């Protein structure tokens, strides 16, 4: 057949479309230019107390300079028996790419519901936290672009906050800020919750200087702290504002509060 070839670059008859030699790409490979991610702005915050946890987030949803919605909650109750989550004991906050955040929330909630169905009891925060890490890591090579924080009460009834990166690294912490204004809020929290850089006046010079003793904050103090943190973030970050959503998790369940933030 090669004798009929009229194309010196191709070593063959070169008349049938399907006969063309091509560079072989792996099966199922796709070429794309589509960017599957966006950043929808917003910020979240969680603080653990002695017998409560407060989860908070603003309710603005942005894309670029547009405000898509002024009320789009970022904090969700997880693992209740019904879809209104009236008896939920765990809360999850997500920021980053809103669609991924939502998908993540629904995955975790479905898993909690299956757990309850199979075991006849709700999932503990510890177990839920571990599972969330697994969910995130399962998508290690096409990650959920979402910064998640999980909050609840541990086996001893103490406030528990678990924070995550988008691929599932997690740790339990006293407090954590996430999202657009995390870098604005976190240092404030370090100072106000963990008393970083606070020393007892006149206790010494240099290394002898004694740190202020850490003690868990009261619920009232934490609520004020959260509001102050967000008021500050709203002033300095354009993607944060409109409304503040707060979930207060205690042994009596989850109480949800929303209050206005500046809309500019």
């Amino acid at each position: 057949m090669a004798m009929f070839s009229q194309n010196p670059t191709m070593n063959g008859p070169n008349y049938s479309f399907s006969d063309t030699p091509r560079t072989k790409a792996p099966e199922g490979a796709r070429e794309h230019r589509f960017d599957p991610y966006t950043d929808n702005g917003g910020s979240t915050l969680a603080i653990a107390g002695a017998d409560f946890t407060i989860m908070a987030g603003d309710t603005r949803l942005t894309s670029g300079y547009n405000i898509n919605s002024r009320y789009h909650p970022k904090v969700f109750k997880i693992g209740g028996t019904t879809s209104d989550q009236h008896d939920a004991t765990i809360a999850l906050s997500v920021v980053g790419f809103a669609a991924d955040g939502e998908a993540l929330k629904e995955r975790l909630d479905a898993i909690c519901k299956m757990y309850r169905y199979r075991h006849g009891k709700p999932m503990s925060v510890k177990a839920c936290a571990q599972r969330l890490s697994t969910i995130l890591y399962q998508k290690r090579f096409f990650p959920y672009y979402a910064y998640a924080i999980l909050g609840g009460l541990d086996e001893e009834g103490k406030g528990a906050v678990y924070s995550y990166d988008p691929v599932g690294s997690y740790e339990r912490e006293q407090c954590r800020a996430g999202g657009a204004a995390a870098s604005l809020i976190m240092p404030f929290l370090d100072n106000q919750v963990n008393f970083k850089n606070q020393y007892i006046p006149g206790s010494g010079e240099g290394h002898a200087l004694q740190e202020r003793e850490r003690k868990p904050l009261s619920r009232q103090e934490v609520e004020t702290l959260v509001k102050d943190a967000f008021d500050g973030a709203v002033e300095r970050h354009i993607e944060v504002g409109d409304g503040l959503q707060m979930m207060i998790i205690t042994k009596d369940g989850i109480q949800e509060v929303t209050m206005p933030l500046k809309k500019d």
Partner: protein
Amino acid sequence: MFRNNYDNDSVTFSPQGRIFQVEYAAEAVKQGSVVVGITSKTHVVLVAVKRNAEELSSYQKKLFPIDEHVGIAIAGLTSDARVLSNFMKQQSLGHRLTYGRSMPVRSLVEMIGSKAQTNTQHYGKRPYGVGLLVAGVDESGPHLFEFQPSGMTEEMVAFAIGARSQMARTYLEKNLDKFASCGREELIAHGLKALKESLVQDKELTVENTSVAVAGAKSKDGGAKAEPFKVYDGQEVNAWIESVADEKEAAAGGESGEGMDVDA
């Protein structure tokens, strides 16, 4: 041992046009302890007597929640029921995830109907050895469906399946006209009375052996919220049992015949 030559598998018709394997499966349903379901305009109720294999063992569960709006009562092989239950749970969870609503009970029942039917038409498969009463509420109100191993499903106003269920059905037929306007408590009472009809003579309803489940539809004007499907056991059913205990029946007779290992 064989009744005839046409009952070795479920793909062969007998010359009389019967499929014996399917009929035998229906027999397994009749050996399970009795379950009763009734609907009114506002509620749907399931009641059941649980059996224990021996004095020392626990009672086999008869009522299972599937999703927040639907649950099942089983008569027959519990393990087969669990397969169907898991499938229904998966389907209703998936439906809730994609549409954000409760799965219509009819759709759910039709799915297990076709699933069960395929088992009666493939060589090497075995029909489910269990009958179900599926009770639930959706946008169109309360529903009760009967499911049989043959894959037959049918909507019912009130129904009973399982051992000696004919007695219960006779009670239901007699009181059929009353059900539609019944309130929640009345409906449960009717259910328990029907259940008592089917009991062997020296047996009584106790907190150990009685299960009750209720689901309520949301009111048409949007006033009352839907009551999620909930199973009541133990002391929770005590008041209901006592409310129907007044009319004492004469006690005599023997135990139900020892059948194959069902419900225990």
